[in-house]
């Protein structure tokens, strides 16, 4: 694992607290982690472990209550909404569990959206959307609507949409959650390919077997990091025989 220069993603004691009446819910509790360019990291944890909150912060959809989050060396916590929107647009490529495609728009229009908000001209947008849809194997379905596609195909559209703006990070939130295991594996190998091409991929999942496809695992429990290291040594992941209880 290369770790040249400064990390792409860096959490410094990041906490996210939610206040519900008198109770404080610590969704993230002083998390420290660094992710470097070119890594394929799986953030894994049970529901309630804080992995969704973590993803929201990495994706600049949310800001930490305490601590600092550096994305490409820039502290994000102090930025305003418009600046966050710009960062999401330029640096993050989202892949969601539910695909989150616009039902009324065709595939090409769906993939064009990030470029539209980036102010790319219409003809350039078309060209790039067509290219990237071809790359994911849907070059013949540019004018189809999402609901005419299978789940796996829809997820490939959403991968194309995440890629089209050449973001610094591909952020995939349970990308296989809505797919059968075979299609899920296809999607995972696609993510792997993307990583091999040099993209930084952050995968959020509750499923250890899926996390096993990454290079590195960060396991969260109750808002804290309980493991951070290579897949091979991760408890309860992949071919490792040790159970979580045995850690």
């Amino acid at each position: 694992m290369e770790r040249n220069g400064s990390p792409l993603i860096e959490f410094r004691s990041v906490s996210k607290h939610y206040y519900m009446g008198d109770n404080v819910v610590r969704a993230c509790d002083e998390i420290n982690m660094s992710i470097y360019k070119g890594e394929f990291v799986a953030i894994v944890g049970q529901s309630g472990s804080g992995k969704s909150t973590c993803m929201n912060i990495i994706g600049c959809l949310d800001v930490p209550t305490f601590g600092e989050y550096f994305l490409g060396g820039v502290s994000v916590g102090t930025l305003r909404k418009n600046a966050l929107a710009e960062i999401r647009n330029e640096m993050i490529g989202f892949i969601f569990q539910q695909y989150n495609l616009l039902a009324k728009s065709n595939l090409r229009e769906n993939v064009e959206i990030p470029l539209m908000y980036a102010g790319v001209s219409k003809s350039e947008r078309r060209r790039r959307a067509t290219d990237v849809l071809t790359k994911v194997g849907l070059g013949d379905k540019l004018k189809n609507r999402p609901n005419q596609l299978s789940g796996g195909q829809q997820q490939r559209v959403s991968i194309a949409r995440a890629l089209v703006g050449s973001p610094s990070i591909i952020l995939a939130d349970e990308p296989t959650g809505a797919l059968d295991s075979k299609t899920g594996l296809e999607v995972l190998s696609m993510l792997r390919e993307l990583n091999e091409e040099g993209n930084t991929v952050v995968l959020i999942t509750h499923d250890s077997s899926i996390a096993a496809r990454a290079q590195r695992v960060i396991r969260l429990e109750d808002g804290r990091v309980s493991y951070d290291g290579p897949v091979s040594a991760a408890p309860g992941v992949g071919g490792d025989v040790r159970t979580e209880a045995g850690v």
Partner: protein
Amino acid sequence: MRFFESFELALKNILAGKMRAFLTMLGIIIGVMSVITIVGLGNGMENYMVDAFKSLGTDTLNIMITGRGSSRSVSEEKMYEIVEEHPEYFLKLSPTVSMGGASVKLGSETLESPSVTGVSEDYLEMKQYLLMPGGRGLYYVDVRERANVCVVGKYVNETYFDGEAVGETLKISGRMFTIIGVLDIIADSGETEEGGADDVIFIPYSTAARMSGIGVLNSYTVTLVSEDLATPAKEVMEDELYDVFGSDNAYRVQSMSELLGTMTQMLNILITVLALIAGISLLVGGIGIMNIMLVSVTERTREIGIRKALGAKERYIMSQFVIEAATTSVIGGALGILAGFGLSAVATQVIAAMTEESLTVSPSIASVFMAFGISAVIGILFGYLPAKKAAKLNPIDALRYE
């Protein structure tokens, strides 16, 4: 993202739900349609009134002397003097003696309809009436000699004399009058009719005054240099008559153009009030748009979340919804304008069929532009609140929205 793209997106969304979009627009359509038709109706009524007054002469003053007791009066000579003293206002004067009760007989047949009026030799020229070839008008000598001659309107000529009236005679209140001339068509409609502007007989005012037993002439018509001078000319005439009578109860000076001005003003107020009432439906239409846009924001919460996650700034979301509301409203406005023209045409036909008057309901270009502008403004105003709501949505919550 440029404006045109937002507009394209808005059009696409509107076209995706045509029925819903149409129902949303309906309030605006009806509002614009009523405003346009009502303003058109006002224009039509004004034109109709102006025409009616024009035929009475908007460049003339009518003076009625009621006198003060029986002793004070104004002489014919004094009236001519007043007119000559103010050439900057007045052109010509003619006494008019209306013979309301006169019976007109042709042989033993009684003609009921023609109106008989005593006028001076200048009157026909003042009114710009033209004579048919082969006859003459009234001369000064006819007035001086109280001659029993008359000029008849075209209707009288054609109906009772087969167009050969000159040289024939008819009896007015028992006196035999020789017809010396026939007027060419006067009526604005271009058609003669019984009791209309062409069903008239003019005789010398001196003859008429003697026949009616009037000692002193009490009615005059004065033509003005210009119709714009009606108001100052009326004041001058009133001042002069006040000097004669020392009271303003002894006479009445009527200016057709002033009367027309007053009536037009009243009509305009009425139309403005009606248009404002119709405008309320525009407001209701705007609220309808706001309502649907609010529903639409809720329905599209997830879409908004996706767009925000993919990098849409608040102002893009905002402009998308405002432009969609404005586009809906403007399309409604355009349809309303078309409907307004349609309704105006129908109203013209209905009025013609019901009243036999030709009143054209003519929507003005200004009202069209205003209706269009107002509907755009309404769309933007009432689109603002839902758009603000959409723009402020938290992307995390919006993405999770089912």
